[in-house]
C-alpha cells in the first residue's frame, strides 16, 4: 500500500512541496503559531514572508508543516530577539533550535541570512554567524523591553 503524501500527522511519509518547506517563525510573537492545519493544508499565524507572500525555506527537519524536529518540541526555524539589560544596553538575537547542534535551518539558508540586516524595534543589526550558535547567539548593543523584529533582509514579519 502506498503512503499518502503530505498528511499532517504522518512524520515519516514522503512529502510534497508544501510539507518540504516551512515559514521562518517569529519567536518574538507569543501565542499560537498556526491558525489551521490539516492534511495538505497549513495556515501560519505569524512568521516572516516576502512581499509576494512566500518566504518558505527548506529545513532538515521538514518532515511536516510544523517543522517539528522530532527531538524536542518547538516551532521550527525561527528568529528571536531577546532583550537583556538596559544598562548597558545589551540583547541577544538568534535562530533557536531544538535538541541538536545542527540548527533548524540548513547551512545554505544560514549562510544567506548571515550579513542580512535585521530591523528591530530597538534598531538595526547585521546578522552574523553567531546568531546560529547556541547557547549565546548574537549579542548586540541595544535594548527594548518589548523588543520586536520588523524585518530580516527581504523577509517582513507578519
Amino acid at each position, binding site marked *: 500500500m502506498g503512503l499518502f503524501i503530505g498528511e499532517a500527522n504522518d512524520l515519516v511519509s514522503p512529502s510534497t512541496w*508544501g510539507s518540504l518547506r516551512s515559514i521562518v517563525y517569529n519567536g518574538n510573537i507569543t501565542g499560537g503559531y498556526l491558525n*489551521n492545519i490539516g*492534511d*495538505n*493544508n497549513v495556515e501560519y499565524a*505569524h512568521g516572516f514572508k516576502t512581499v509576494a507572500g*512566500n*518566504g518558505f525555506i527548506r529545513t532538515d527537519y521538514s518532515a511536516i508543516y510544523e517543522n517539528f524536529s522530532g527531538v524536542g518540541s518547538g516551532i521550527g526555524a525561527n528568529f528571536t530577539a531577546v532583550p537583556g539589560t538596559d544598562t548597558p544596553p545589551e540583547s541577544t538575537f538568534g535562530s533557536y533550535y531544538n535538541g541538536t547542534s545542527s540548527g533548524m535551518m540548513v547551512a545554505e539558508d544560514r549562510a544567506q541570512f548571515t550579513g542580512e540586516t535585521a530591523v528591530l524595534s530597538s534598531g538595526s543589526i547585521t546578522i552574523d554567524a553567531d546568531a546560529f550558535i547556541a547557547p549565546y547567539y548574537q549579542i548586540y548593543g541595544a535594548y527594548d523591553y518589548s523588543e520586536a523584529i520588523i524585518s530580516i533582509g527581504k523577509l517582513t514579519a*507578519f
Partner: protein
Amino acid sequence: MKLQPGVGYTFNSSSSGFTIDTAEQFPDNASASTFPFQIISVGASGSNFRYRVVSGTLNNIVPEIDDVVSSTEVLLDRVTSGIADPPIGQLSINSTTNESWIYLRAGVSGSTGAFPDSDATTSNYPKVISSNTVLFDTDTYGYVLLGKFTMNSYSAPTSGVLNQYVGSSLWGDRLKTGTDTARYYYARI
C-alpha cells in the same frame, strides 16, 4: 513472399504450417485514448453547449461535476450497471468573448482542515466547473484551469476551439501566511 501480422489479425505458426488469428478484428483505436482531466466536447444542446471531463484525481479524490442531465453533482468516474456513464456538464459562456473557462475547484475542510475536503456533501469537495469569467484563488477555493473553450456564439454555440492545459491527475497543498490569501501549490502525478 513474406506474411506479417497486421491490424486485426495475427499469425500462429507451427511445424505443420500457420493459421490466421482474427480474434481481434476491431482493436481499440489507439487515437481514442484519453488522459486524466481531458475535456471532451459533447456538442450543442438547444442554446447551450455540453462537455465532459475524463476522470482524474486531486489528492486521490475523484472530483464531481454538475451533471446537466440529472441536475445533480456526479463523480467524474460514474459507472452505471457496470458501464462507464460519465456525467455531462454545460458551458457557462462569456457574452462578450464567447469564452468559457473550465476549472477544477477545491476548498479546505471546515471540520478537519484537510485540503481538499473529502466530504462530497460540502461545496469544498473537488468539483469541475465552467465559468464565464476568469477565476482567482480565494481563502475558500483554489482553482486549477483545466482548459478553455472559445465558442462561435454566446447565445447559440455550435462549435468552438478547445485548449487543454492540464494533462494529469494532481496533488496539491494549501498554504496561507497571516492575512494573505491562501496559496495553492499543485504537482502533477
